[in-house]
């Protein structure tokens, strides 16, 4: 059955002629898969975005990094092709595949030309369903992952991020980076990778977004051909982590001219009725552009940093409100104090009507600009499904933002934000800072 829903991407600006209509169809395949499709025949290619819930969170406790190494090997030999054969065929077809592992998702995106779509689908199908994990490919890619981990250990940003997640989640799988650690990755066997493959990729945990030169009638059999060989279900998810520890500050000494701080606290889930208000508050505190509280106080007024940002990280079962800043060792303490000050001010109801209005016009205006490119549209569609959004969310989203009132902002800021709960991890040699 094909449900059809026409969604107009309305800018909430007066009198703007809305000519672009994003027409999202829900496509259900004979094999029981569901996908969201935006048919757009303007260019001869299609973008497919697949998100498999789970990601590195389903790594066995003694095998952190298994899902990541498995995912990195999907294009290194599949079916009858070894790594060279696979990549030569991808090159000949001019198909573009990307495979990534995140803490709660394996994300796979593909762009393929209409003229050889069937061959490109067959190639991607083999990568997803019959990867080989040949010994030489495993060793080659393992060495690359280990080199990446070694570089992360010397990179203050990566160190700060890893230490932050470890502090927030401890032994829960979210506490380790998707890449795992050197000892565990060195010990992974081909059997471990096959187990990770069976656990991570299934028809039951996939969310599918498609945009481009294809209609629903062609897409349904394509998806069954692409994913029909996967098992019906994969590994169960590990369950949410315990509540994060109280706020605080840790300093990790590292010889570098500029310190990096990663900070954050627990947030609320995307299906929480207060999520949209939280999203608007984040724009005011540390969202994109030069206008946020943090950019204004740290960069524009004081020149303490090149950039400071906050964002909502909707980790499944453990949503976070995070931020990051880099500042000279001499000024990091001041930067951290200012961030806490702003956090406390907003939590205490300090947002003005003018700030709220500016954030709302920015967010509603910028939303349609996200749909620039079929790969981006496909990714938005799969992401909406993974977050449990309804198909008409694209239509309603700006109205939901516009409806947020100053009372909402003050109430939700008081509910969600807590300067005392903010946890900072600083990597560098910051002056006048000691861990708490």
């Amino acid at each position: 059955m094909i449900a059809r829903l026409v969604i107009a991407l309305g800018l909430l600006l007066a009198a703007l002629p809305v000519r672009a209509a994003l027409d999202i169809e829900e496509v259900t395949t004979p094999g029981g898969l569901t996908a969201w499709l935006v048919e757009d025949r303007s260019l001869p290619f299609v973008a497919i975005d697949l998100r498999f819930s789970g990601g590195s969170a389903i790594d066995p406790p003694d095998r952190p990094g298994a899902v990541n190494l498995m995912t990195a090997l999907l294009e290194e030999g599949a079916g009858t092709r070894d790594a060279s054969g696979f990549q030569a065929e991808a090159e000949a077809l001019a198909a573009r595949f990307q495979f990534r592992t995140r803490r709660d998702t394996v994300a796979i995106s593909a762009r393929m030309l209409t003229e050889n779509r069937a061959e490109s689908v067959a190639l991607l199908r083999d990568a997803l369903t019959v990867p080989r994990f040949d010994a030489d490919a495993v060793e080659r890619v393992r060495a690359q992952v280990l080199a990446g981990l070694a570089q992360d250990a010397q990179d203050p940003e990566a160190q700060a991020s890893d230490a932050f997640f470890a502090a927030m989640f401890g032994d829960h799988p979210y506490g380790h980076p998707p890449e795992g650690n050197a000892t565990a990755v060195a010990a992974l066997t081909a059997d471990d990778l096959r187990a990770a493959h069976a656990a991570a990729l299934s028809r039951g945990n996939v969310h599918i977004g498609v945009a481009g030169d294809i209609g629903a009638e062609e897409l349904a059999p394509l998806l069954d051909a692409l994913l029909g060989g996967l098992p019906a279900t994969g590994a169960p998810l590990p369950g949410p982590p315990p509540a994060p520890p109280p706020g605080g500050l840790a300093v990790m000494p590292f010889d570098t001219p500029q310190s990096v701080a990663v900070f954050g606290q627990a947030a609320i889930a995307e299906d929480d009725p207060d999520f949209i208000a939280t999203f608007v508050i984040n724009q005011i505190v540390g969202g994109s552009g030069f206008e946020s509280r943090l950019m204004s106080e740290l960069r524009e007024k004081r020149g303490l940093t090149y950039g400071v940002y906050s964002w909502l990280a909707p980790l499944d079962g453990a949503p976070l409100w995070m931020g990051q800043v880099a500042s000279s060792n001499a000024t990091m303490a001041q930067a951290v104090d200012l961030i806490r000050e702003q956090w406390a001010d907003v939590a205490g109801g300090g947002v003005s009507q003018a700030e709220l209005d500016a954030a709302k016009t920015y967010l509603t205006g910028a939303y349609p600009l996200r749909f620039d490119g079929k790969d981006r549209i496909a990714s938005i569609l799969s992401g909406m499904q993974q977050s449990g959004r309804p198909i008409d969310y694209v239509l309603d989203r700006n109205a939901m933002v516009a409806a947020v009132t100053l009372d909402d902002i003050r109430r939700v800021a008081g509910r969600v934000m807590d300067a005392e709960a903010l946890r900072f991890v600083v990597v560098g040699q910051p002056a006048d800072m000691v861990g708490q």
Partner: protein
Amino acid sequence: MSRLALTLLLAALALPRAALALGDDGVTTLTLDNGLDVVVIEDHTAPAVTHMVWYRVGAADEPPGQSGIAHFLEHLMFKGTEAMPDGAFSRLIAANGGTENAFTSWDYTAYFQTVAADRLGLMMTHEADRMANLRLSPEDVETERGVILEERAQRTDSDPGALFAEQLRAALFLNHPYGVPIIGWRHEMAELDRAAALDFYRRHYAPNNAILVVAGDVTPETVRALAEETYGQMPVAPDVAPQLRPAEPPHRAERRIVFEDARVARPYVARSYLVPARAPGDQGDAAALLVLAELLGRGGVTDRLGAALQLRDGIALYAGARYNPTARDAATFDIFVMPNEGVTLAEAEAALDRELAALVEAGPDPARLSRIKARLRADRVYDLDRIQSRARQFGVALSTGLSPADIAAWPAAIDAVTAEDVVDAAQRFLDRDAAVTGYLRAPAPQIAEATQ
């Protein structure tokens, strides 16, 4: 009333939209009376528009001792004018749901906004305003100097790979300012002041030194009318002329550097050759070099270097090449090899040189050559999907001295590259005397004195 030279680009323009797949249709160029060049790229798929102003000036045009001033001025351009003080333009863009940014290269400095199409006139009004009416307070300059020093700390000083690349480039260029980092040398950045920024601004920012690129849901007629009302009113700067830059002398001696930094986790070898860029009316060498770089690859196991050094010999963790063909005066062709554990940098370099020699000896595999060219054609289809990247390609090409005809001819130049062209380019341009080879590694471990 001003007269406009309206030039329609490309025969492909006459084709219907459905046939645009491999062409650059929908593109119109014109020039205002005051010398501002205008490019309009029509794409009506979304009610949005990207508006960019490109100045034909960059870090390679800085006065000696003022490295970083082009980029510093780019930051200061967000401070304000009399009409729009204290960042009011940025607030206006945000309040209209737009996004903005700017970037500085050696050859150009560009400012852009993406907004709903009916806000284009507003963007033009204020971008034209700051073309001539920038107002800087001493406090703005002091604060923003802190920001660029933090930017350098974050993007360069905190990253040994970035510091190494900076040293390689400085060693490659003997005389041309392409050897000076865009962000600037720290000791000179610390001295940049308001007067230097305003001097650079007055000297280079004018309609007759700029290119306007508008891409999206617009028509050339609308853009022309809006541009006449806004940029068309800005005064010509009489002294703006193509900058004469110090040119490279013949390179007669190979250079080698060793950069040691305790933060290096995995050592690698990099080599940077001085090679030609796309030249107006003559893009053949650049096309051959581009195909050569694609053949050598980016770390894939079917790429020439990946197949030999990663897969066959097990010498390298990664090996690849990169060539950016679009620059005004010269380009670099860069190769790097990160050896596997147990392989020295010298062994990795020797293996690289054997592979380069083998390519010259035997020539590229014809089947792979045609696959590479097909992939580059497909990339152009994928690129058409991103209106901003199309606009950017036009801005980069035009601001580095290429013409619309050169841009139109570039795909055909790539398609025309033969196996012989690739070998010929490798022989002529991969010249060790015109190159620098660098090793990036951690210092050897100190043997601790047995004092405990």
